[in-house]
């Protein structure tokens, strides 16, 4: 008997997701087994406690197959198309990499230094937008421009090389990319980063890459060139499209949920809670994949070693166990321990940077462009269909 298909985001039907099927799945007494777009069969976990349990236990539930191998064709084969990718490591090997990231991307003192950079990039982008003809393509010219500039500045990638990260990300996040297609698409960015590592080893600067080199130099196992390339490549690829899409998608949600944009404009200091609520409400609609490492159980359902498990993160964040009215979007709420940046050892490396970016940009728009409006009705928005990073493909706005 063939299994039901994994319910995937369909923004035409449910613009701010998750698909309506999840309401029943979340409260069902048993887990469901589904077939994923890449052909693998998996247990589907869609309630808050279950998602949190699976993501929180890397010993029982490994990321080895790739976090999105349930939807990305490039991860279908036995070999990862991203060689040496730390995202597919578990345990101490993975923690070692995370500890080389953390001082650069999630230490409060380091983050305080980043704030002025993000503010400056944002202010310039708002000024540029206000001087542009209308309608203005917000996703490409504003959201993506800001988040690309921030991550590229952090790592020290000059403007004439930034197209490399856009091309790599498009290939990595597009569901239909083949394994070979992905290897070919990543090659130019990897080659450039290898060169950059050599340059920074010879002439260190104040950027994240130089600091990683310096920081790991006195450790027991200094980072290799391949690891540095991987880590900085991951920051560049994962760092701009996710946050840009969250901004653009977030503005659609803010402007289409009655009263929410007005509340934010009246009190721009709500930007931080609005940003957090957007990540809770809209984050990871596509879900995440894990593989059981041993015979175990989730909610009493026996799971065999080797079984795949898909966690429906967005559905988990809409569970009444997290908030009694979790299906409502509310910029004044404290979203609490939501799972929009993931949970467990693989939880988003860049989440503190993303928070700073989202908060700074929302605040700037609420203060400087309160008349912001979307120039097409909700049902005419063109959504990204073949990407794991969801949101509008473009968004024409005026003010």
């Amino acid at each position: 008997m063939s299994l039901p298909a994994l319910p995937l985001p369909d923004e035409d039907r449910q613009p701010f997701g998750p698909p309506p099927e999840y309401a029943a799945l979340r409260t069902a007494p048993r887990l469901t087994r589904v077939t994923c777009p890449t052909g693998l069969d998996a247990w589907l976990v869609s309630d808050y406690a279950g998602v949190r349990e699976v993501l929180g236990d890397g010993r029982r539930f490994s990321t080895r197959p790739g976090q999105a191998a349930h939807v990305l064709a490039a991860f279908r084969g036995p070999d990862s198309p991203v060689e040496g990718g730390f995202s597919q490591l578990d345990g101490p090997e993975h923690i070692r990499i995370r500890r080389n990231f953390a001082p650069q991307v999630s230490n409060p003192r380091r983050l305080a230094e980043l704030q002025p950079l993000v503010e400056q990039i944002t202010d310039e982008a708002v000024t540029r937008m206000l001087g542009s003809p209308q309608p203005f393509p917000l996703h490409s010219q504003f959201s993506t421009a800001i988040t690309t500039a921030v991550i590229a500045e952090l790592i020290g990638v000059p403007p004439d090389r930034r197209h490399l990260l856009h091309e790599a990300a498009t290939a990595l996040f597009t569901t239909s990319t083949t394994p070979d297609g992905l290897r070919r698409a990543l090659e130019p960015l990897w080659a450039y980063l290898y060169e950059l590592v050599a340059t920074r080893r010879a002439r260190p600067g104040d950027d994240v890459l130089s600091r990683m080199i310096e920081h790991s130099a006195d450790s027991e196992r200094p980072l290799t060139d391949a690891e540095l390339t991987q880590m900085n490549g991951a920051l560049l690829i994962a760092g701009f499209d996710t946050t840009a899409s969250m901004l653009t998608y977030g503005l659609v949600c803010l402007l289409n949920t009655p009263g929410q944009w007005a509340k934010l404009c009246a009190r721009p200091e709500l930007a931080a809670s609005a940003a957090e609520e957007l990540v809770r409400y809209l984050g990871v609609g596509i879900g995440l994949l894990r593989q059981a490492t041993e015979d175990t159980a989730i909610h009493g359902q026996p799971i065999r070693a080797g079984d795949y498990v898909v966690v429906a993160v967005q559905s988990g964040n809409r569970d009444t166990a997290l908030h009694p009215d979790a299906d409502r979007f509310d910029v004044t709420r404290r979203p609490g321990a939501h799972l929009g940046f993931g949970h467990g050892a693989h939880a988003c490396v860049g989440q503190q940077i993303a928070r700073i970016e989202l908060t700074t940009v929302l605040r700037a728009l609420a203060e400087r462009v309160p008349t912001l409006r979307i120039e097409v009705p909700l049902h005419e928005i063109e959504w990204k269909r073949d990407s794991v990073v969801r949101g509008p493909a473009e968004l024409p706005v005026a003010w």
Partner: protein
Amino acid sequence: MIRVATDRDRCIGSGMCVLIAPAVFDQDPDDAVVVLLDESPPETARPAVEQAVDRCPAAVIRLLPEPADRV
């Protein structure tokens, strides 16, 4: 007074605890691993510490039961 413990081996340096309860937690400037500033903070710190327990992605922080002689 409450009692707090951390398991530094599993900390990923996410910085959530420091954002939520800076009087109780800090991060090592070198590897960003959690540093417990106060193992037995006052009762008033309980809500923030509970929130840190809930939001720590790596389940590193624990709120210990009161010692028996104090219950």
